[in-house]
């Protein structure tokens, strides 16, 4: 990789200032597990001159219930979520999602904010040295459409891009109705991700997530990740379901589209009903009614529709 500078601001404002003054060639780095790899592979649109680390800014870590919310610092390590007794007991799907993320080593480095803001794993986008000038890089072609789509979107294209969001924490955050708190505003979690190409989020370049707020939760929740490997793997499809004490459900799939996919059809299916295996299966079927495979020229992603159904069924049954 090329040499680069790394700044260690001690306040969020200082970090934002660096970013604002260098709008094109400065990137935020949390744990570094995403951006450093991208730099090594030379896949960023512009190679960063500098990284702005959030590591020395106090107050960006921690997990605590405060008032009506659970507050999670954006720089909290993913492993801390996986190990948190509070999350395991009350925000189960989030602890489960964290425990299925990457590997223990990566989780000890990767942060919650970084996991939610990571770039897509599309192998055309990630191909070394920007060999494929895909639409996410300003080109006019989504190479997956004529290529290998086995891990790509089943809910259509986003501005001609078939990539998917790979985050494990994202569906759990959506199910728990989280809010991202930045140095500029509060963003309902479903609005965090962008359909825009080439960006992954709706954040401004100088906008920094400082924490996530989750309304205190007293219901049941469940996360499931279908993957090729048990560890160090991104999801084929993952999903989470949270059913609050009043019986209202929020269900979300991920790795099925460019942004996490809220499954309102599934939520409606189970609303006010006792959860049974057949009801959960019915909800799964409802969730993928609008799904459509992209055949490509390799392994079709048609199977992902079936897995998405299965994941929905599992996370609903997990809340029983």
């Amino acid at each position, binding site marked *: *990789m*090329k*040499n680069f500078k790394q700044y260690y601001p001690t306040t969020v404002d200082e970090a934002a200032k660096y970013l604002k003054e260098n709008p094109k060639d400065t990137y935020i780095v949390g744990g570094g597990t995403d951006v450093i790899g991208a730099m090594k*592979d*030379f896949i960023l649109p512009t190679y960063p001159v500098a990284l702005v680390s959030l590591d020395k800014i106090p107050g960006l870590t921690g997990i605590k219930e405060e008032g009506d919310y659970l507050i999670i610092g954006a720089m909290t390590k993913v492993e801390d979520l996986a190990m948190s007794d509070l999350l395991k007991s009350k925000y189960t799907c989030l602890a489960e999602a964290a425990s299925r993320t990457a*590997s223990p080593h990566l989780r000890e480095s990767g942060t919650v904010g970084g996991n939610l803001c990571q770039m897509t*794993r599309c*192998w*055309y986008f990630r*191909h*070394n*040295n920007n*060999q494929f000038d895909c639409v996410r890089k300003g080109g006019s072609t989504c*190479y997956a459409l*004529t*290529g*290998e789509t*086995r891990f790509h979107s089943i809910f259509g294209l986003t501005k001609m891009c078939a990539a998917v969001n790979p985050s494990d924490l994202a569906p759990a955050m959506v199910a728990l109705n989280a809010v991202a708190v930045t140095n500029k505003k509060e963003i309902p979690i479903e609005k965090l991700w962008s359909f825009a190409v080439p960006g992954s989020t709706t954040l401004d370049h100088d906008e920094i997530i400082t924490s996530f707020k989750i309304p205190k939760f007293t219901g049941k929740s469940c996360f499931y990740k*279908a*993957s*090729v*490997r*048990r*560890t*160090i*793997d*991104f999801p*084929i*499809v993952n999903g989470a379901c949270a059913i609050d004490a009043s019986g209202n459900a929020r269900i979300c799939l991920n790795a099925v589209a460019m942004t996490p996919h809220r499954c309102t059809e599934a939520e409606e299916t189970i609303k006010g009903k006792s959860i049974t295996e057949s009801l959960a299966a019915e909800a799964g079927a409802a969730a993928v009614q609008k799904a459509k495979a992209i055949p490509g*020229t*390799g*392994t079709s992603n*048609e*199977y992902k529709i*079936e*897995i998405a*159904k*299965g*994941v929905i*069924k*599992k996370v609903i049954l997990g809340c029983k």
Partner: protein
Amino acid sequence: MADEYKDDFLYVGKDYRRKDGPEKAMGTAIYASDITLPNSLFAKVMTCPWAHAKIKKMDTSKAEKIEGVVDIIRYDDPRIKDTKLMSSWNHPFTAYLTENVEELKDFLPSEGFYDGEEMGVIIVAESEDICEEAMNAVEVEWEQLPFVLDPEDSIKKDAPIYYPGRETMIGNGNEIPGCEFSMGDVDKAFKESDEVWTVPVAEPMINWVGAEMPQVTCNWEGEDVVVYAHTQQPYDLSLYTAANLGLKQCQVKVITPYSGGTFGERAFVQHFNDQGITYIAAMVAKQHKRPCKCFINRADQFRSARSQCYMHGEIKIGANKNGKINAVSIKNFTSHQRAGLWITGSAYSGYDHFTDNTCVQNIKMEDHCAVTSQPPGWWFRCEQNIGSYNLGIVNSEVAHKFGLDPTDVAILNNGYEGHDVDYLYNIAKEHGLPTRDSLKACIETGKKAFGWDSKFHADGAKKLPNGRYHGVGFIWDHAWNDNVNTITVGLSLNQDGSVNILGQRDDLGTNDKTTYSQIAAECIGIPYEMVNYRCGDSTAPFQLKNPGGSMGVISQSRGIMRAAKKLRTAIFDKALTLNLPEFKDAVVDDLDLKEGYVFKKSAPNAKVHISDIAATCLPYATQPWGISCKGVIMVYDTNVTKRKWGYPDGGTRPRFARQCHFIEVEVDPDTGEIFMTNINNVVDVGVVISPKSCRGQAYGGAMQGLGRAYSEEYIYDKTYGVILNPDLQEYKIVTMLDFETAEAELEESHNAGGEWGCGGIGEDVATLIPAILSDAVRNAIGVSITEQPITPDKIIMALKDKK
């Protein structure tokens, strides 16, 4: 019988701490990648980014301006005009491998024939990072050319022809003279069978996935060059390097530190990732009068590495309801680049596990091996994958077709060259070898350890409370008993009575330092602690393994045994010259050596420590050597029956030892995920030399084999012919969390081919295991999936089709 032999051993069969364990565990072991000489330059070679492409125009001006770039060597650089590298066919060492003749390979061509082929330009810089940055700054205008990825497509009439005019090719010009084999009357046997059916088979193209990347550092000492390389063949690398540089071989010294994973891939010095990068490092070091390290990064390694060939095809099976296999007809298509080398190896391996291990009398093999835009094929992680896979799939198919226990099908069809198992063990009996039915013993042990009888059930019949289907699988084959024709091994006696095993460094991570030391201690009669295997460089006089790995312990045990006999005689000879009272009136045959003491067999209590004898061997205390002797093994003498077909040398190798494996899985019908909950490996290793090593090799082999069956594969974009997963994230090797438990059971029949009847383990387990997953998944879900890897997409679609 095994116990009788085992009782005689003092050092064999016991567990000792690995001699290389502490330094490897503490991270102090030195690998080639650790070696960066002072003032070293670094070099990186470009790889073709497309399936088949030619450079129309190259602009290196931006790269030249990057600070730290020292030199740029382009394909059109006058300094390398007409430079060629040795090909596989230009040297006597490999001349026997094939009758195909390929021209010398251009050193730095302007045309690449597959994604990842080294070509175009070399960047020389002050650091690896600068090399990478400068390479990224090289601008190339490419002319993309037609290509083909599938070997079946490659032999079609309208396929692009890769090497027009090459006389040794057949068909449309892309097909390599492959393998046709026929035994018995297949058509007649099919007609006489209760059932005849055809199954598709496919094995993915896989990478060796070594932890350490290929890399070489070269430094000149006057007119001589020293090479520090990550290679499995130091001697051969010195040979090719000398030829490429126009040197005498005695001017080249190849030093091989520890190797971070080789698996056979680093045993092919003809490939650019060996001889090519060595030539670059040596050339740059010479021109710039500085050491030079030429390196390959992970992505380029995935793309440029020789691969285990992609194979697909079908097997037609004819069998009776009792499980007797009457006929097998195999049709394979295998892919290869740089046609010729070893591909016939993969072909004959497609059927020979039937001829070697079964009583199936009617066998036909048709292999079409064709040039494609995939990397060169090579036999790392075992050349016998296809043959073993085919045997495993057929055993499984027959069992499932007739609802039989696959262990019963195995026993029924066990044999040799179309004859039953009695014929096989009559051969053993005739030659004074043990006659224990190895397969029966392995199955009995495995069934008990695994609990097979209580777990085996009809296909798709057991659904667990967690919603998953439960399945069990079984596989069998011969245990590894291959042996190289020639090895040389030296033993040197030191002044204190300790002994060094002399041979070139060839570290495969298999605990060879410990195992060979145990064998030497046993054979010489000195304590284990008094033996060490300190490997030398390519100028060491003894080439301990050639190649190692597959045939390591069998070959080495015989070599060490012979050398030890000579060493003992030399020690006894010397002892008798000392006029010691303990040996009064004795001759050599009267003496014995045990636990480090020499004594008369008739008076074992009057003994002399070996150090007292060894010390007298040195006329001067400063002289660094003592008694030395060289033991040579030329041929493993199992030529007990003449084979009329098969191997190029016409030889034969009846395999008396067997192995079998049992696996338990759960398959999630909603997600297609496989959960491997338990695997029991049972291997007849003949004699256990080092129990820990054997078990470690079994576990490692199980992991490698499961990877191939479960998740590993190169994924290509078929439109551009580009590899999409050249990294450890998307190329998915299995991890320790992918299966819950593994147990290894070791059988000792004393009949596996090496000294005392010891045999190999590790590679064989890895080779057998893939087919077992197909067997277990079918038992779980009731659907046959014989095209691997068995990823969730295949299971989901198979279940969907079943509905």
